[in-house]
Structure formats: C-alpha cells, structure tokens
C-alpha cells in the first residue's frame, strides 16, 4: 500500500513539476530565445542544468515551505494520514490549475497555486481559524506590486539604454564605452540576487554590506574580462529568423549579457519554484516512512534533483513551442529589449525581496514586458490580453482553494 501511495504521489509531483516547466520556465527563458540571444537548444540545456543545480544547491532545506507556513502541521499530529491526503490533494489541485492556465495561455504563479491549494485543505482539516490568512493578503498585495515595479524597472531601463546607447551615432564606440559598465551592473545584480535570493534557503547569514563588498570587486573583474571577451565574440545569424541582419555591436553585447541573465533566471527558478512540486511530495514521503507528522521535513537531494530535471523536462516537452513562438512571432524582441525585460525582472525580484515586498517571478516578467511596451519598445502589445492575465491571477486562489477542498473531501471519503 505504501509503495502504491508513494508511486502515485511521485507521479502527481512529476505532473506538477512538468507543468511548472511548461508554464513558468518557458516564459522566463522565452525572452532570451525570442531575441536570438541563445538558441532553442541552448535554452533547454541551460534550463535543465541551471534549474537542477538551483534546486539541489539552493532549493534544499525547505523548512516551513512544505505547508508554506499556511497551516501548522502539528495540528494534524494525531492524524498523519490527513496531512498526507491533504498534501496530495494540494499537489493535484495546483497541478491541474497550472495545466489549465498553460492551456489557456495564461502566465500564472505556481507558488500562488500551491498556497491556494494548501489553504483549501487547511480550511477543511484544521479549520479556517487556523489558517494564516496574512499570507493571502500578502499575495493580493503582490498582484499590484509585482507588475508595477517590474514595469517601472523594465521600462525605465529600456528608456535609459535607448536614449543613451542605441541612439548613439557610432554604435561600435558606444558599445566599447558602455560594455564595462553594463557588465558591471549585471554582475552586481546577479551576484547579489544569487546570494540573497538564489541561496536564501541555505541561510548563509551574510550581511548586506559584506555581500556588497564582495560583489563589487568581483563585478569589476568581470567587467574588465567581459568587455575584452565581448569584443571578440561574433554571433551566428538568428536560428529562428534566418536572414535577419547580423547583430549590431551593441546588440551583440546585450545578447551576451542575456545569456547570463538567462542562466540566473533558470537557477533562481530551480532554487525557489521547484520546491512547489517537491515540498508537498517530501511531506507525503515523510508521513509514509515515519508514520508521524514532522514540523520540518528535510527534502532529500534526489527528490530536488529529480524535481529540477522534471521541470527541465516539462520545458523540453511542452515549453519549446512556447519559446519558439515567442522567437518567431515577436520580431520586435531584440537582444536589447529582451535583456531589459529579463534584467528588469531580475532586479525587481532582488530589490523587492530585500525590501520584504511579496513578489512573483511570472508577474514581474509580465509587468516588465508591458513596461517596455508602453515605452514603445515591444511592438504591438495586446492590452486586452492583460485583462485575461489579471483575471487569471485573481482566479488562481479561489480556484485552487475550492479544487483542493473538493479533492481532499473525495480522498477522505474514499480512502479514510
């Protein structure tokens, strides 16, 4: 019986992981492929490796996140099976919602789907009063903060680069002049993000100032080495749009920088989002093997690695078409604009998580793209789609809450 439960739970966990890859990661990597900074194959390879690395190196030690701090698992200490069934229902409910959203082309937050699902089963199992509702309020706030800050930073970055660099009479000189500065800023933000966001689950406890002092010289060295390297690099023509004229020196610089941001996005995704699929699975494994409810469950490395690979697999199986379409359809997505979208999003995530503002990668990216669009950088933007995306963000919580309640009731009825 235990083996059966574990196999089914693993399958559902894999289902969720694949969905995360197809929805979340495909969008995050899409801008790099779309701008021809990297090829489709490179995107898949980077995603799988960086995502699995992020999950194993930085995604472990998931402490409260198994139940997302929404319910106190000790309330279910007398009945470990209920926790197990609840986690199972949550995983399935969130997976179904993300799958549905992927089908309808809506970029939703997988973390919020899991939160909603855990709330759903929490209401039924430990009662509505035991649910930490402040988490929900935080999510509601993030619907506004994520796209707004993402849009401001993405759009602002685009405006600055367009004004300062792209309009330069001699782009080659401009690229030589600005390359060290750009590389410095990108490295600085990525190193800080890496330590504070990517590795936050390791609880390194390094101070902001210490990190800063470490990051500045490293970024400076990278700027010197990077600008030398960028000058030597030549990029073959775009795979998705053959015949497109070769990148200008400036675009080549942004394409190179985008490779970095793409790696970072995939790593951060592995570190933070793979847990959405693996966390509940670890809880189920813990209940089955120990027959008790643990307050904190350490997620085994193999599970994180498996989750990371499954997310990459999801991207490979269902995400390539998403990335390919972004690449083919959005002809206005140049390396510079793609870089602004991705780097704007990465910077937003860093700043907001430092300030303690709740943020969702997906929401920030959407905000960033729209921000650049409003600055007239993204060609034809369909603002009507924004309405649907907003609606899907609003629906995520009620839908997953209700679905996980329904599934929980069904499982309890049939299994207990």
């Amino acid at each position, binding site marked *: 019986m235990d083996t059966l439960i574990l196999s089914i739970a693993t399958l559902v966990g894999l289902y969720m992981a694949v969905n995360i890859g197809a929805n979340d990661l495909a969008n995050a990597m899409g801008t790099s492929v779309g701008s021809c900074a990297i090829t489709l194959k490179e995107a898949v390879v980077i995603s799988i490796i960086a995502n699995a690395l992020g999950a194993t190196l930085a995604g472990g030690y998931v402490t409260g996140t198994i139940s997302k701090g929404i319910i106190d698992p000790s309330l279910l200490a007398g009945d470990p099976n209920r926790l197990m069934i609840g986690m199972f229902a949550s995983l399935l409910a969130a997976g179904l919602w993300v799958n549905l959203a992927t089908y309808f082309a809506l970029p939703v937050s997988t973390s919020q789907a899991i939160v909603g699902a855990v709330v759903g089963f929490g209401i039924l199992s430990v009662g509505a009063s035991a649910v930490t509702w402040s988490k929900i309020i935080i999510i509601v706030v993030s619907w506004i903060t994520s796209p707004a800050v993402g849009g401001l930073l993405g759009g602002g970055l685009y405006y600055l680069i367009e004004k300062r660099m792209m309009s330069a009479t001699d*782009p080659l000189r401009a690229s030589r002049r600005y390359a060290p500065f750009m590389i410095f800023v990108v490295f600085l933000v990525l190193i800080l993000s890496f330590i504070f966001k990517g590795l936050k689950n390791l609880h390194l406890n390094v101070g902001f100032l210490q990190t800063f002092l470490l990051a500045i010289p490293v970024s400076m060295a990278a700027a010197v080495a990077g600008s030398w390297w960028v000058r030597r690099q030549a990029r073959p023509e775009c795979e998705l749009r053959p015949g497109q004229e070769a990148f200008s020196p400036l675009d080549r610089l942004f394409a190179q920088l985008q490779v970095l941001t793409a790696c970072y996005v995939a790593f951060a995704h592995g570190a933070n989002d793979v847990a959405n699929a693996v966390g509940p699975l670890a809880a189920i494994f813990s209940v089955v093997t120990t027959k008790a409810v643990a307050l904190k469950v350490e997620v085994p490395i193999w599970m994180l690695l498996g989750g990371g690979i499954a997310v990459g697999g999801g991207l490979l199986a269902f995400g390539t*078409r*998403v990335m390919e379409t972004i690449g083919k359809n959005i002809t206005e997505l140049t390396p510079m604009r793609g870089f602004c979208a991705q780097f704007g999003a990465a910077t937003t995530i860093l700043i907001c998580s430092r300030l303690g503002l709740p943020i969702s990668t997906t929401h920030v990216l959407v905000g960033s793209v729209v921000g650049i669009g409003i600055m007239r950088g993204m060609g034809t933007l369909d603002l009507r789609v924004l309405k649907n995306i907003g609606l899907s963000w609003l629906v995520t919580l009620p839908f997953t809450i209700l679905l996980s309640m329904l599934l929980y009731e069904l499982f309890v009825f049939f299994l207990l």
Partner: protein
Amino acid sequence: MRLLLSSLFYKSPFENLQKHADKVRECARLFKQAAVFHLRGESAKFEETTDQVARLESEADAIKRNIRNHLPKGILMQVDKFQFLQYVREQDKVLDEVEEALFWLSFRPRGIPAEVSQDFEDLVEAAIPPIEKLSDLVAMATVFFRAGSKEQRTRMKSLVNDIRQHEKESDILERDLKLKIFATLKDEPLMVFHLVRFVEIVGNISDHAQNAADRMRAMVAK
C-alpha cells in the same frame, strides 16, 4: 494550445503593410508598361495590363482591409495608430489613382497626339520612382521599429526627402505639359479635356506618395 507570454504580443501590422506596398510597386511597373502599350496603339496588350492592375488593386484592397480590421482598441503600437492608418490610406490612394489613370486612358484608345507623346512618357516615367521608394520606406520602417538605430532613422528621413523631391519634379512636368496641351491642341476640346484630366490624375499619384511619405516622417518623429 495558445501560447503564454507571446499572446501578449499582437501580430505586427507592418508585415501586411509591406505586402501592400509591394502590390503598389508592382502596379507602378505595370502602369509604365501599359502607358507604353497605349502610346504604341497596342490596345490588346494595354487592356491585358490594365486588367492585371485592376486585379492587383483588389488584392491590395483586401490587404488594406485586413490591416484596418485587425487593429482593434486595446492594441498598443510603437507608432500612433492614427498616423499609421493615415499612411495606409495614402498608400492605397496611390494605387487607386494608378488604376483610375489607366481606366481614363482606356476611354480614348488613340487619344495621345504625337506632339505631346514624349512629354506624356516623361510624366509617366516621373511618377514611378516615388511609388517604388514607398515600398523601400516601408521595408526600412519595419527594421527601424524592430531594432531602431539613429542611422536607420536618418536614412528614412533622406528617403522621405527624395520622395518630396520627386513630387516637386513631377509637379513641374505636370504644369509644363498642361501649358503645352493648351497651346498646341487649341481646336480639340475633347482631346484637351481627356489629356488634362489624365495629367492631373498622374499628378495625384505623386501627391499621394508624398502624403504617405510625410505620414511616415511623422511616425519616426522624436
């Protein structure tokens, strides 16, 4: 399956604009041929070419409608939608005038007297470059709005100036030819009417090409 973030992006109308501009360019080529056939009195070939132009015109009309019908409210473009639609209108009018000029010619199969035939050819010849440059302008605009550089913008501006210059030259030819028609064909009111109206239609072709170029200039304004 519809696709995620990419669904935020709407199909760029510049693709269709290029198709439309290419049809206009093709019509310009046929217009010149047809005018030569008319002068030589090869009426069968003239009619065949006029039919071809009429067919191209209706194809271009379909493209124009497609552009207009697929820019609903809520679509955010890099350029002012009003300017863009005005551009489409002017580019389409170029084609309408080409068609109109050929139809008008066809009403009098041997209507061009030898005295003005050379000037007539020159006038038609002068109407072609602005139309052809319009298609180049659209191609440049597509690249400019994708990955705009200052250099590209300067090139577009100089192309707009070229078109303006052509229009000016065509205006001068138009005026001279009218003077000549009134001076040489005093006793043939029917012929004068037919020729003067034709000259005016050809003048309109360059006017609309220039209007279109001016709209494009407004779209790349900083």
